[in-house]
């Protein structure tokens, strides 16, 4: 009995002292951050969150992975409709138009201003900033993980055909692939033609060649934009890809078939691929022992004045309907991510590129790009900053673009399976894509993009 009594007294005393101590260390304000990365990348985000929480005592960010970009957007919408949305959410590049019309966000630039943070918006690489900014140049969300597409080429295979440099034009690519085929390579180049590859095959190609994907400057100037990829240089490109595929110079590699193109390249099976700079780390880690490879900017057709490539990845949106305290925390978090040191941490541990010039300069000054595993990643910056963004190369601002990408995959598969001709396939892509855009416009009557 006495033991219990004594224990109770001790417990009460402990509770009392705890209660007294509480006000001294104020409970940090918690806010939610939902993101769409998984696996290795999710662990890096978790570390990033821990670093933020350790860097100050006023706020605590709770980071939750939703698995992938699609699921993040879906879950956020569901949560928003139920009034349980996170304060900060990561939304992928092509979700930007949908977000802008949602009316569900707090503009990031306003948030930072209200909370006394000065962000130098001119510091962002213009190719990155324009993708997420309004037509007037206001940043509604903060670029977070950014990448662009590069050509990965196997130096050993190119050495076999007497080349020491990556091809710069598509004409050269055609000749080199043929030479490699003649030299006995089974798979000179690998591509995939699902919805995801719309990014490097259609979007990046069109930007590099300053060709529009849709009217109204790719949708920036109005919701009545409609696709026009069936009458640009893109037609020629698909025709060439199909020709090379038929000649056995290009193989289709996807996970469903047993090996995706990154694996095919890293294992030395295929000699050229086009994929995100974000895969740079994966190739380095999984490559065949002793294989020599490098990255280069995506080729263009001869006689083309090269423009900047498009940024891929996602940005951070702050959602409406949260408390001022949470907004303070969100602003501190965005400010933390904006820091060049965070950029170095982020880029070292993922393959993503820094989004600001100061971040890039800081990384260069630490010698990041000189060391072996990271060497070559600066090519992505060169590609993104190849020119000032034009009206067309600043990005794509089309509603429900995910569905248009799906349609791209469908039509490319039909073309490559010889079900339709290149022109017919692209015509159908435009027709079905326009129906999607039409529907999006009808859903938001009388609204305009900011």
């Amino acid at each position, binding site marked *: 009995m006495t033991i219990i009594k004594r224990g109770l007294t001790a417990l009460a005393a402990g509770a009392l002292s705890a209660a007294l101590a509480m006000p001294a260390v104020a409970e940090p304000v918690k806010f939610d951050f939902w993101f769409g990365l998984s696996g290795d990348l999710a662990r890096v985000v978790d570390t990033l969150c821990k670093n933020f929480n350790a860097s100050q005592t006023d706020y605590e960010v709770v980071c939750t992975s939703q698995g992938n970009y*699609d699921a993040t*957007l*879906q879950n956020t*919408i569901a949560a*928003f*409709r139920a009034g349980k949305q996170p304060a900060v959410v990561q939304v992928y590049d092509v979700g930007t138009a*949908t977000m802008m*019309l*949602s*009316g*569900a966000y707090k503009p990031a630039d306003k948030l930072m201003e209200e909370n006394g943070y000065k962000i130098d918006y001119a510091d962002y690489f213009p190719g990155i900033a324009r993708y997420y900014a309004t037509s007037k140049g206001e940043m509604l969300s903060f670029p977070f993980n950014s990448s662009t597409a590069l050509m990965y080429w196997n130096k050993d295979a190119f050495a076999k055909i007497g080349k020491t440099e990556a091809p710069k034009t598509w004409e050269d690519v055609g000749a080199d692939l043929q030479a490699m085929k003649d030299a006995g390579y089974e798979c000179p180049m690998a591509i995939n033609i*699902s919805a995801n590859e719309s990014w490097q095959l259609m979007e990046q190609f069109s930007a590099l060649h300053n060709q529009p994907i849709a009217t109204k400057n790719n949708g920036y100037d109005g919701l009545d934009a409609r696709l026009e990829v069936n009458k640009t240089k893109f037609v020629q490109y698909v025709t060439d890809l199909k020709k090379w595929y038929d000649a056995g110079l290009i193989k*289709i590699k*996807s996970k*469903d*078939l*047993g*090996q995706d193109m990154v694996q095919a390249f890293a294992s030395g099976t295929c000699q050229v691929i086009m994929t995100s700079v974000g895969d740079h780390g994966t190739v380095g880690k999984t490559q065949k022992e002793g294989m020599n490879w490098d990255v280069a900017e995506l080729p263009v057709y001869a006689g083309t004045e090269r423009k900047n490539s498009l940024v891929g990845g996602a940005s951070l949106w702050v959602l409406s309907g949260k408390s001022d305290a949470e907004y303070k925390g969100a602003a501190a978090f965005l400010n933390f991510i904006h820091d060049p040191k965070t950029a170095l941490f982020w880029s070292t541990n993922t393959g993503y590129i820094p989004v600001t010039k100061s971040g890039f300069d800081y990384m260069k000054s630490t010698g990041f790009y000189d060391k072996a595993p990271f060497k070559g990643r600066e090519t992505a910056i060169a590609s993104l900053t190849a020119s000032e963004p034009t009206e067309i190369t600043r990005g794509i601002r089309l509603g*429900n673009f*995910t*569905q248009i990408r*799906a349609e791209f*995959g*469908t*039509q490319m*598969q*039909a073309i*490559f*399976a010889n*079900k339709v001709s290149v022109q017919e396939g692209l015509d159908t892509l435009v027709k*079905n894509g326009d*129906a*999607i855009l039409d*529907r999006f416009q*009808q*859903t*938001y*009557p009388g609204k305009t993009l900011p």
Partner: protein
Amino acid sequence: MEKRVTFSSWTIGILFAVPQLLLIFTFFYWPAGQAVYWSLTLQQPWGGGNIWVGLDNFRSILANADYWNSITASLVFAGISTGLAMFVGLVLAALTDRQLTGSRFYRVVLIWPYGIAAPALAMAFRFILAPEAGFMAVVNQVWPGFWDPGLDGTDAMASIIIAFSWKYVGYNFIFFLAAFQAIPRSLIEAAAMDGSGVLRRFWDIQFPLITPTIFFLLVINITESFQDSFGIVDIMTSGGPANATNLMVYKIYSDGFKGLDYSGAAAQSIILMVLIVVLTIFQFRFIERRVHYR
């Protein structure tokens, strides 16, 4: 005279029914009603507002060639996979029922596939049927280009049919075996003594006696092939290549959740519901006539 439990007053009866009615209302009528409402409006995904459009959603869906292609694909899938799963299940159950060597072992093992979740099963089959790495790679070595589900729509359709049937063979097997074992042994033994062979006994005695089970499984298999195929399609083909395996249930998911076209997806799910109802009514109206329950 059959004895029936009756309630003296209405109120008690209704009180007993209320929990069930509430459940059905919350989880069926309410969402279904919501889907009907959504299908008649254009919903902004973020809930900012909606516009009444009447039957426009249905009109635009039914005018879309891709949608008809999706219906055709669903019907082909339902027809072949139901036929295959039921036929194989029936044969295996009939053989197991004959108590050949090892039938106890088969009885346990053949039930397992149904216990595997569709996505896990699809992962396994994606590997088995992968043209470059799996079992089919061997076949492709002998006949190059024979199997290519990445570009050939027929091959892709065959893949998902095989995966789905494999899962439902186990399910059908349990029911068929139970039905076979419910047939009095004396009937079979009498027929055997009269000199009829295995096949004759099957056609004249066993098959007619299990028609209720066959009918039940037919309804379930067809209904499930419209709904339970989602996980398999999502993992194995994502509806490709070129929409060849874009079944109705998958199209609802991709339009609604990936494309954020909630209204169009709602309209499609209403059409799917009506289609399943019509198919089921058809089965009860025309096929059930041939079923003998006693």
